[in-house]
């Protein structure tokens, strides 16, 4: 019998994988992808909790949609940043991105 806890567990595992990806990768695009995984995990939580705790309305889904919007904006700006830095550094390796260090 699948209940809310299964959904929450799935979301936790996805979030954990995303966290590991953010830490263990060097490629900036890969890190962005890991962040997307984490955002998706959050969305699952929103929707699942909405559905199980308060099935009469859809505020959780609404928030998930806002998260998706923000994620789209974040990805577009993030990728534009990466491309822009790549033009100067010829690299997408995050350890090369040390312009602000002194």
């Amino acid at each position, binding site marked *: 019998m699948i209940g809310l806890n299964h959904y929450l567990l799935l979301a936790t595992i996805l979030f954990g994988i995303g966290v590991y990806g953010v830490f263990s990768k060097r490629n900036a695009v890969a890190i962005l992808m890991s962040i997307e*995984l984490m955002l998706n995990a959050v969305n699952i939580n929103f929707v699942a909790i909405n559905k199980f705790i308060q099935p009469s309305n859809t505020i959780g889904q609404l928030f998930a949609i806002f998260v998706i919007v923000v994620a789209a904006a974040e990805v577009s700006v993030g990728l534009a940043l990466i491309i822009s830095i790549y033009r100067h550094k010829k690299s997408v390796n995050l350890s090369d991105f040390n312009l602000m260090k002194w």
Partner: protein
Amino acid sequence: MSITINDGVFIIISGLTIVSALGVVFSRNIIHSALFLVLAFLGVAGIFFELGAGFLGLVQILVYAGAISVLIIFAIMLVMNVEAEKTNLPNPSLKTHLWGACLALLLIITLGTSIWRSELFQVLGPPAVSDAVGLLAELMLGNYVVAFEVAAVLLLLAVVGAIILARGVEEE
């Protein structure tokens, strides 16, 4: 405790999602990572369908699988200057891996056990499927109309910002 069709579908979809999420993190070729990401997005969309949020699942497919992942793949193709097999190597220092693994495992174990043991979450049965589109529209253009407009402005800004960043400022 018998397994219904719904449960079987959930197990298959969640398994697919987790496996493809692992694929995103562990592939050495970043294009494979991105394609696994598409699969993970589709899996999450399946979870949404399972939860009765059909509209949200379709939004997930349209925006994530159809647009964001394409954007990511495009960006990857624009910033690739080494062999495909070496585009997504893990960080060479062991320390970061340890940190990441520790944090992730800590998260999964603590949250997972607490979720699993919590009485609060176990009482509830499978979700009821209902027409969410109308409710969603009323919320979006009713109570949350300001957030909706802000989101629209945010998207516009993101588009403009992305164009400016990616094209670069022309130096006179």
